[in-house]
């Protein structure tokens, strides 16, 4: 550690003004603060500086994402071998290695593309490289099907960093969640890759064949078919995995979303470290459950008849609620606001999913939509509070 610190301090003058590479100062600074906490002292205002700066906060999110990522990698391999009927012969290790080899390039491409864009902007505008992308770069791959071509991943990441963040002034200024923006970009730009029926890696080697009756459709895609009137309720129910399978997560789906168990682990880490807001997570689930129950009563199409608790496990609902909706920048800031924000996300997500079969992944659209409304919610919560206290003052 000490040697590393000495090295960093030794090469530092090279990057400062008058040094050899002043253009690369921001790049250097980013790596320096990545390794060591800076000894900055607040000089103005009454800010409290915690030993945990933003970079460390972001690290907790990454740690919370690890269960979902590891599970996702294994599941990619598992689904692949299931599809070609080899899962009996292959052990967990084989499956994980297969998945790792497919998922790791996506993660690398996301980070390279995103950080390159960030560094370019940081150098151009001479501000610090923001840490926000450490998390976005991990979230983006987890929201993609493993079959997404790598160039699409890079394009979406660059789009999300520029249009989602840098346009508004960088980390902390963004209106919508950049990771979700990347996914929404791909979803609308290349719909064929996001239909929910091509999520399993099925490129075959010689001598391999898909097993009979293989469909590869995600449970959500099945639901969307039913909502579109192409299946009866019983057909849909039978085509869906059991609730236990959906909880564990060995079902087709995008890399990070399938396992409610892994997401739950992540949620516990987020809440325990105080990084993610429990209010938002809970209210998203409550909102979704309530809406699904209400739709149960009407039950016009088969997807509406699905038991409400199924909706919590379907598609990316849980993943979105835990990791996307709780983004501290784009969510509501006030306590009451968080409840309203979360409830509305849950309600809108289920509404879109059930009533519009063309967009089964309603949680993505719901969160992006509510991101835009979060400041408005905060505004009215604060106004209401001011009014309440004024009244109390008058009464006293």
């Amino acid at each position: 550690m000490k040697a590393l610190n000495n090295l960093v301090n030794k090469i530092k003058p090279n990057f400062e003004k008058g040094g050899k590479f002043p253009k690369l100062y921001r790049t250097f600074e980013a790596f320096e603060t990545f390794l060591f906490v800076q000894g900055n002292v607040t000089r103005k205002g009454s800010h409290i500086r915690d030993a945990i700066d933003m970079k460390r906060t972001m690290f907790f999110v990454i740690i919370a994402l690890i269960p979902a990522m590891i599970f996702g990698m294994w599941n990619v391999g598992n689904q692949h071998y299931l599809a070609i009927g080899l899962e009996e012969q292959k052990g967990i290790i084989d499956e994980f290695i297969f998945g790792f080899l497919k998922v790791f390039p996506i993660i690398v491409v996301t980070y390279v593309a995103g950080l390159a864009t960030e560094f370019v902007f940081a150098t151009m505008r001479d501000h610090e490289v923001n840490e926000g992308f450490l998390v976005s770069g991990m979230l983006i791959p987890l929201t993609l099907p493993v079959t997404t071509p790598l160039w699409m991943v890079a394009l979406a990441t660059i789009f999300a960093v520029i249009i989602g963040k840098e346009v508004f002034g960088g980390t902390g200024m963004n209106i919508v969640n950049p990771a979700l923006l990347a996914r929404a970009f791909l979803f609308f730009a290349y719909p064929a890759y996001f239909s929910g029926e091509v999520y399993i890696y099925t490129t075959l080697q010689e001598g391999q064949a898909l097993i009979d009756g293989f469909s590869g459709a995600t449970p959500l895609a099945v639901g969307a078919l039913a909502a579109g009137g192409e299946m009866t309720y019983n057909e849909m129910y039978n085509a869906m995995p059991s609730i236990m399978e959906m909880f564990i997560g060995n079902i087709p789906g995008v890399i990070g979303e399938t396992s409610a168990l892994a997401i739950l682990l992540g949620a516990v880490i987020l809440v325990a470290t105080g990084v993610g807001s429990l209010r938002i997570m809970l209210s998203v689930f409550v909102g979704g459950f309530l809406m699904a129950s209400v739709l149960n009563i009407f039950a016009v199409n088969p997807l509406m008849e699905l038991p409400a608790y199924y909706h919590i496990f379907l598609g990316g609902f849980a993943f979105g609620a835990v990791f996307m909706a709780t983004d501290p920048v784009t969510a509501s800031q006030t306590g009451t606001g968080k409840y309203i924000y979360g409830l509305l996300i849950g309600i809108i997500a289920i509404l879109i999913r059930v009533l519009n079969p063309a967009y089964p992944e309603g949680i993505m659209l719901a969160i992006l939509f509510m991101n835009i409304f979060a400041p408005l919610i905060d505004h009215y919560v604060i106004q209401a509070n001011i009014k309440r206290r004024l009244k109390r003052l008058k009464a006293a």
Partner: protein
Amino acid sequence: MSNNNSQQEPLFSLKNKRLLSNPIGKDNPITVQVLGICSILAITVQVKASLVMAVSVVAVMGLANVIISILRKTIPPRIRIIVQLVVISSLVILVDQILKAFVYDVSRQLSVFVGLIITNCIIMGRLEAFALNNKVWPSFLDGVGNAAGYGAILLVVGIVRELFGAGTLMGHQVIPQAFYDLGYENNGLMILPPMALITVGIIIWIHRARDRELIDVS
């Protein structure tokens, strides 16, 4: 009336040139005044449609400015908006008929948006702000300049959207087949209106980054 005016100063004096060039650059109706956004979202999927739209607006706007400028002393101020609308709509109907006669397929593609030139706020805005108070020749230049500024942005957005959305320009394949064989795909988002808005936003961004005095801090 116009002859008298132009005798006093040369046809393309510096002031008149500015009337023509300012709206294309730093007083652009779309990127600076943010007018006429609805049509830019609707008809820029293809370059051809954008081009026809741009030419139509140049024609309507130049002529409308001239006519209103000629009539400016006889129009009662109370009903000036109605008079302006009558002038614009007659011109738009003329343009619509010409389009139908000569480029029928594009006309069908533009559908209702040719008619909606009437409601294009840039035209009304220039009539109110300029033609009602200025002589004929400057009014004409102002109209053509503003329409050209509008058309220029329309064309840029059209090129971006058609190139990335369909791989073509003016209907000709531009992106080679080899790219598609390598796995390249047309971007479906480009065909949807939000991407027109984002493209315009990026143009505004670049425009202001290059011309710092346009940045207003309010």
